[in-house]
């Protein structure tokens, strides 16, 4: 069973989320139509692990791009006008581009992994939370205890939904 509480105001919704955490209810989600940056603490979010993906991807891109240039240039030596086979300035440009390319792709991967998307299945959701409502969904055993807290925090309406 899932409990869905709807709020008209972001501060009451964030307050409710904080109250839930205070009472030891961790298994809930807060839906909002806009990012609520000040709510991160209330729902227990700190620095996002996406940054690890970005860094790893960028480093891999840097090493990989440079390695690509060096490796391909040494497969078949083509000396031109006495210029170095492994030429730093042009290879660093390629490295620069591949750093960004893999940085972007890894960030994308990080987004999907950390944000747990894509998720093409039915999950607790109220479309109003993408318009002008703030919704808190509490799942599982703590739903009974949560109802009191949510009502006390000023929920507009509370619905129950049996998980499919």
């Amino acid at each position, binding site marked *: 069973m899932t409990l869905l509480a709807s709020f*008209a*105001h*972001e*501060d*009451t919704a964030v307050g409710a*989320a904080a109250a839930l955490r205070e009472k030891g209810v961790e298994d809930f*989600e*807060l*839906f*909002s*139509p*806009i*990012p609520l940056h000040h709510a*991160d603490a209330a*729902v227990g*979010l700190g*620095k*996002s692990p*996406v*940054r690890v993906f*970005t860094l790893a991807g*960028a480093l891999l891109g840097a090493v990989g791009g440079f390695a690509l*240039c060096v490796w*391909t*240039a040494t*497969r*078949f030596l*083509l000396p031109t006008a006495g*210029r170095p086979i492994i030429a730093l300035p*042009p*290879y660093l*440009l*390629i490295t*620069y*581009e*591949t750093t*960004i*390319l893999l*940085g*972007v*792709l890894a*960030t*994308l991967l*990080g*987004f999907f992994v*950390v*944000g*747990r*998307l*894509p*998720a*093409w*299945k039915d*999950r607790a959701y109220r*479309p109003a939370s*993408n*318009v*002008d409502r*703030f919704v808190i969904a509490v799942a599982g055993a703590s739903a009974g205890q949560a109802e009191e807290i949510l009502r006390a925090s*000023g929920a507009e309406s509370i619905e129950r939904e049996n998980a499919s």
Partner: protein
Amino acid sequence: MSSVLRKQMFDHGPPSYAEVNRDVINALTTTTWRYWLTLGISASVALLFFIAPWIYQIIVGVGAAGMNRNAMWGTYLSNFIFWIGLSHSGTLLSAVLHITQSDWRKSIYRSAEAMTLFSLMTAALFVMVHVGRLWFVHWTFPVPNPMELWPNFRSPLMFDVMAILTYLTASSVFIYMGSLPDFAAVRDASKGLRRRIYAVLCFGWRGTAQEWHTLGWSYTFFAVLVIPLAVSVHSIVSWDFAMSTVPGLHQTIFAPYFVCGAIYSGTAGIVTVMWMLRRYMGFGRYIGKLHIDNLSKLLLVLSLIWTYINICELFTAWYADTSFENEAILYRIWEGPFWWLWWEMIAFCAFVPLLLFSRRIRQNWNLMLVISIVINIGMLTERFVIVASSLPRKFLPDVFGTYFPSLVEISITVGSFAVFTTLFLLFVKIFPAVSIYEVKETLAPLRKREASA
């Protein structure tokens, strides 16, 4: 965000949260016969003026274009630079203004990014047109040939391929990720097939705190990665020219010159697109005086930088006083067949924008439309002048020649604008052209305490 700025952003008063959803999704789902007519016309023009001459050129060979032994590069390459340049402003405007937290960007950035993406695609098309034998275009990619010889990574053309592929990837990711919550909003507001399509497109977005948090972080990383990328892309395009030894092209100022010109013409392009969105998509409520005023100020600054770099270019040539450079410059601005285009470019891109010192002109949408188009005509000719006045005049008189675009080239140039328009028209019916959630962020927050206070 301050309430003063909030007031300035919306000429007719700020909408409510629900109205933002309704307005933006309506623009997406309600399609009038005018839209279909415009789409039909622009697609036909693209077919007739771009695709048809291209097929003709593929059949008879690249000799259908006016390029020849002295001038290996022509209009295709200058158009390629133009379209790449046009793409710059979208990303830079969006990413830089995101990093600096300039909130006025929020109602215009989505379309600006779309402009980036589609002008990049148009530019990529020009590479394919330019190479002639389209079926060998994979020779430009970093893959070995059957004899296991790899392309030369010391060549600026190779930098170019890497830069543009990266830019195309990054700007697609950037616009798509920024649109996820809005795809979800369209999904919620529609039924049937459209609902199912958007349910897939939005990856099952629900707007949980976790999702917003992750999107916020990722988006900032994208922005941080995309800014140096955009700067590098046009610098690298400029090195296609500057790293040759051709007089008139072999100049260290080319990278900043190209980057500045790119942002300049891109910003003018954004003004044109915004005018269209206001006029034909009904976004007048979201794109107002503040936006046009800020964009125009940006245009003014860029035009001054652009003028300065042009003066530098002439000055360095004069100061170095080498005969080749002197002749190249003289050929470009006075003796060559395209001298009048050089003066046109100076008039359009250096003098016309001086009008923007006046606030009344800056805030006049129709006048700004004209000015923005004039600037882009100037920028298109700037690129043409660079290519057409240098390559036919290398060091020795026996390689001197002239270049004049053939009918096929002129037609493909005209057609490319239709290709871009067609792509953009498709965009406004697939993507919410104004970011729903970011416009909401600029509205007064739905807070109980503030409301009662």
